[in-house]
């Protein structure tokens, strides 16, 4: 009988521990993130998608704008996965590279601006909650995450230009580097 009781209380302990963690998150993370999201999304609704699209049409021309500035702003303004839609203003050849950079910007900025990718927040938050548990400031980590992201996501996008060149050669496909707007 004693074993049964011990087993049962041990079993319940798992859920008590998990429940305590969940309640802590509900009290700390949920309200803050929610309010931040509301403000951000309202701002985005005021600015409007049209302005960003106009910006995207101009931004495709140089490599820094294409893989650093544009995906950063697209992630901030449109979030995951709508940010990818701005890639349609780029020439075919650069679309895979834009994808590579954009997908990463949807994560690296997510620590500072969780409205970008709330559905995959725990890539960031899973690790960040450890920092929080130690009583340290998450923002320090979030900012470095974003800064390293800005540099390395750009490098990733630029590097994908090279792999695209290589792969298209292998496959015998030529992709256009000229803008052809279908919109």
């Amino acid at each position, binding site marked *: 009988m004693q074993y049964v009781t011990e087993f049962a209380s*041990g079993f319940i*302990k*798992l859920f*008590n*521990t*998990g429940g305590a*963690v*969940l309640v802590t*998150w509900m009290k700390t993370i*949920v309200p803050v*993130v929610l309010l931040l*999201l*509301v403000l951000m*999304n309202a701002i985005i*609704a005021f600015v409007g998608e*049209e302005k960003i699209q106009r910006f995207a049409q101009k931004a495709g021309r140089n490599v820094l704008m294409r893989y650093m500035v544009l995906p950063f702003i697209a992630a901030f303004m449109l979030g995951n*996965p709508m940010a990818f*839609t*701005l*890639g*349609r203003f780029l020439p*075919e*050849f650069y*679309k*895979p590279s834009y*994808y*590579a950079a954009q*997908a*990463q910007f949807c994560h690296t900025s997510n*620590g500072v601006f969780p409205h970008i990718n*709330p*559905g*995959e*927040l*725990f*890539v960031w*938050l*899973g*690790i960040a909650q*450890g*920092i*929080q*548990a*130690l009583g340290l400031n998450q923002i320090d*980590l979030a900012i*470095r*995450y974003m*800064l*390293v992201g800005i540099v*390395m996501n750009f*490098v*990733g996008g630029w*590097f*994908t230009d*090279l*792999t*695209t060149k290589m*792969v298209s050669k292998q496959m015998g*496909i030529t*992709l256009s580097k000229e803008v052809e707007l279908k919109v």
Partner: protein
Amino acid sequence: MAKWNSIQVTKGSGGYGGPLTITPTEQKHKFIYVTGGNRPAIVDRIAELTGMEAVDGFKTAIPEEEIALAIVDCGGTLRCGLYPKKNIKTINVLPTGKSGPLANFITPELYVSNVGVNQIQLLDGDTPVAVEPEVTSTTESEGKYDTSKSITAQMRKPSFIARIGIGAGRIIATFNSAAKELVQTMLNTVIPFMAFVALLIGIIQGSGLGNLFAKIMAPLAGNIFGLILIGFVCSLPFLSPILGPGGVIAQVVGTLIGLEIGRGHIAPQFALPALFAINTQNACDFIPVGLGLEEADSETIEVGVVSVLYSRFFNGVPRVLVAWLASFGLYSR
């Protein structure tokens, strides 16, 4: 019968529903605006494009079967659902989504919101204008609603007070609809994942598994070589698409590492390179869909899938290394 033209109305930024195609007919060639006395700019725009007659719903009532379109400025209480319920196509000037007691009737087929002048386009001339043969008593009642001119004259320039009112209403409605949408996101995606991760943490910490994981994770995530290994494995081109979906693996591994950081088994400095190491496979499962969102050609997608997998592989380890270099001085006191 080119007397009337069809228009297409799309949703504005942050809006909901649509696109709607409005085709006036002999029977339905009037549209009503129920916007609290002011006359939104889109009313004149629609009247000009379609040739339909605008009717101020606050001043004149017209039979429902003659209404081709209703324009409202409803922040989500009643009006936004009232006309869809009657099966009348509805444009909301404010960015209100599915809400209010009649939310069930608000569907993308009948309703579009946050519409401004730019969201209204004339459909191409080749779209046939539907003509309904049974013309009813349209002529006899024509004179009654021809009040539009005087209203236009009155409301072309809304008074200062009215403009403040309209502006404030717009701001509040935008915030309100953002909040509604996001509470849904929280309820549907974030909180369920939190519950799942919290259960995982409970099981790991509450049972003996925690110590076992500490033995595995600490040497792996607690130094740069282990993190490079994680980053390398995650970025392998034949593994990365399998590890990608929904970022679930990255989220679970991240939580495990975070747990060990919280318990003091891994130095907090390694949080930064770990963030990069667990996600070197970032979105490798999503490449065709993402390129589809970019409206890429099928050839581009063919090349792009392979290209991005390669570039993720070559960039994976360098990302972890750079993050590691950038982590010096973080949380060191």
